[in-house]
């Protein structure tokens, strides 16, 4: 039975200001930390999060408890161990972590304290994208409040557990959202990716054991600790636990963000929450979340939007913030825009990515300008194949392949028309 609860967003204020410490505590905040420090061991916290079926909400969906379990515990482990909150939200179409940090920064911190306890971390960072200056300010303010109240620092609530949380503001690059790119950025370098293995849980920041988790993932953690794994599983309609922040942007009546049971269908979110398409436009497709996921079309809208539910449609959940394609918007233009993003943000480290993305962008731009040629569509398909996982150092290019390959699959006739008519039919 699905419980109708919105743990991540229910404390948020209508006036848009962040939930302050006293409000947060009155509503049950930091009870998880108290309970955890009184009654639990690190391995129990990790097991609880595993049992809750919490999967990462940064886009990759890796089981969170499993990631934590890779960190060696005990006094022989080289310290410090680091916990990093990945707040570098830059995936086009994604706007959920901004809401969480701006409106309930203590929820982020409480999740971080629980996660840090589970992996015996000594130092934690919140790595915030450069443009989210209000969010970073509010998180820093919350850290000061939490510290003053004894939830951070040495011997938290008279326990042996100590934790310091620092905010690092980035300088702007999508690759900082990649796990190892982030580590390099935090070390003051270019955000190129690192070879894995070793995985960050073994050798991460400055070579020490490190866990990197997304903001939304961490926001789930205190609720799991407080209410239990079974409760968290029961929030969902499917086997992936919890609620999910789903979003929609594009030409719908009410673009926005909604906390709903994990596994809600695209059609329900589109029709009941976003109010359906605006007058004068029709639905043609959507990218589930965000840019680096595959287009799905109307027949796929009744699939459950959890981490495996979109596989029959050849797609995946990613961040769960959907971008709508309407019938008055050119699909080739949309794919061009997405490809241009990836091309610009490529770190330049490996050839299939930096060279291939620019090539694809040139072809798509030519098509849009009426200079498309026979063989262009085939060349784009070949490029998407070259970006398969394993051919590049990180997931940026494989991500770019997803909207391109699926765009060619669903909207082939539109691509062909650009070439045969030597123009964009939407202009």
């Amino acid at each position, binding site marked *: 039975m699905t419980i109708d609860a919105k743990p991540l967003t229910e404390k948020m204020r209508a006036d848009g200001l962040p939930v302050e410490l006293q409000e947060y505590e009155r509503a049950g905040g930091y009870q998880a930390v108290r309970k955890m420090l009184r009654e639990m061991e690190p391995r129990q916290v990790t097991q609880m999060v595993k049992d809750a079926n919490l999967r990462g909400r940064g886009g990759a969906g890796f089981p969170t408890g499993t990631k934590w379990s890779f960190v060696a515990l005990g006094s022989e482990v080289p310290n410090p161990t680091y916990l990093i909150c990945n707040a570098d939200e830059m995936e086009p179409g994604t706007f959920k972590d901004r809401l969480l940090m701006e409106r309930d920064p203590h929820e982020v911190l409480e999740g971080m304290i629980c996660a840090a306890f589970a992996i015996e971390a000594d130092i934690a960072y919140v790595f915030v994208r450069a443009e989210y200056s209000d969010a970073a300010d509010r998180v820093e303010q919350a850290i000061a409040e939490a510290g003053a109240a004894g939830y951070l620092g040495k011997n938290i609530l008279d326990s042996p557990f100590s934790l310091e949380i620092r905010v690092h503001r980035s300088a702007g690059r999508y690759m900082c959202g990649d796990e190892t790119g982030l580590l390099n950025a935090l070390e003051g370098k270019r955000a190129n990716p690192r070879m894995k293995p070793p995985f960050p849980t073994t050798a991460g920041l*400055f070579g020490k054991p490190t866990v990197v988790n997304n903001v939304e993932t961490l926001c789930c953690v205190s609720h799991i600790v407080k209410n239990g794994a079974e409760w968290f599983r029961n929030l969902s309609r499917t086997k992936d636990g919890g609620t999910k922040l789903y979003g929609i942007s594009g030409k719908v009546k009410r*673009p926005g963000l909604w906390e709903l049971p994990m596994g809600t269908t695209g059609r329900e979110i589109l029709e009941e929450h976003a109010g359906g398409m605006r007058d004068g436009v029709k639905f043609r497709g959507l990218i589930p979340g965000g840019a680096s996921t595959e287009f799905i079309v109307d027949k796929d809208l009744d699939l459950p939007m959890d981490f495996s539910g979109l596989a029959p449609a050849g797609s995946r959940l990613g961040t769960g913030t959907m971008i709508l394609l309407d019938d008055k918007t050119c699909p080739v233009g949309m794919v061009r825009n997405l490809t241009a993003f990836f091309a610009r943000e490529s770190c330049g480290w490996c050839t299939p990515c930096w060279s291939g993305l620019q090539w694809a962008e040139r072809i798509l731009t030519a098509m849009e300008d009426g200079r498309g040629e026979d063989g262009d569509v085939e060349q784009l398909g070949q490029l998407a194949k070259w970006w398969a996982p394993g051919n590049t150092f990180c997931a940026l290019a494989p991500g770019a392949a997803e909207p391109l390959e699926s765009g060619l699959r669903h909207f082939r006739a539109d691509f062909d028309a650009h070439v045969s008519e030597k123009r964009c039919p939407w202009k």
Partner: protein
Amino acid sequence: MLTNEEIREIESEAATYPRRDAACIDALKTVQRRRGWVSDQSVRDIAGLLGMSPEDVDGVATFYNLIFRRPVGRHVILLCDSVSCWVMGYEEIRDRLSEVLGVGLGQTTADNRFTLLPIVCLGCCDRAPAMMVGKDLHTNLDRESIARVLEGYR
């Protein structure tokens, strides 16, 4: 030459890391906060302070979208050109901005008031199209509101 205040700030950041050169990005931001951009001299000064080569510092400085290695105007406009803003009317906003300012993307107005730059997704896609002017976020933009928004920035 870095000012004493800049040096103090950079040193205090460097002290939080196991290696001084980890403060490279923080140092670039410290300098840019005061001067608006990072000059070749600043790159050399930061390198000296952190024990890095100027080439390594420049490699970092030129990697990041929001570190400016050329002078910028008093107010930097970051106009989002990613997919949701594109669907919701980015091109019209870009053209209107160019009309009002008399410059294109990547350029600074003659009076040094504004620099107009493209930026990738600003993370407020349900309120597209969007732009930032300095630290301020402006959303749900349309042709008519552009001039009014810019008036607030002298």
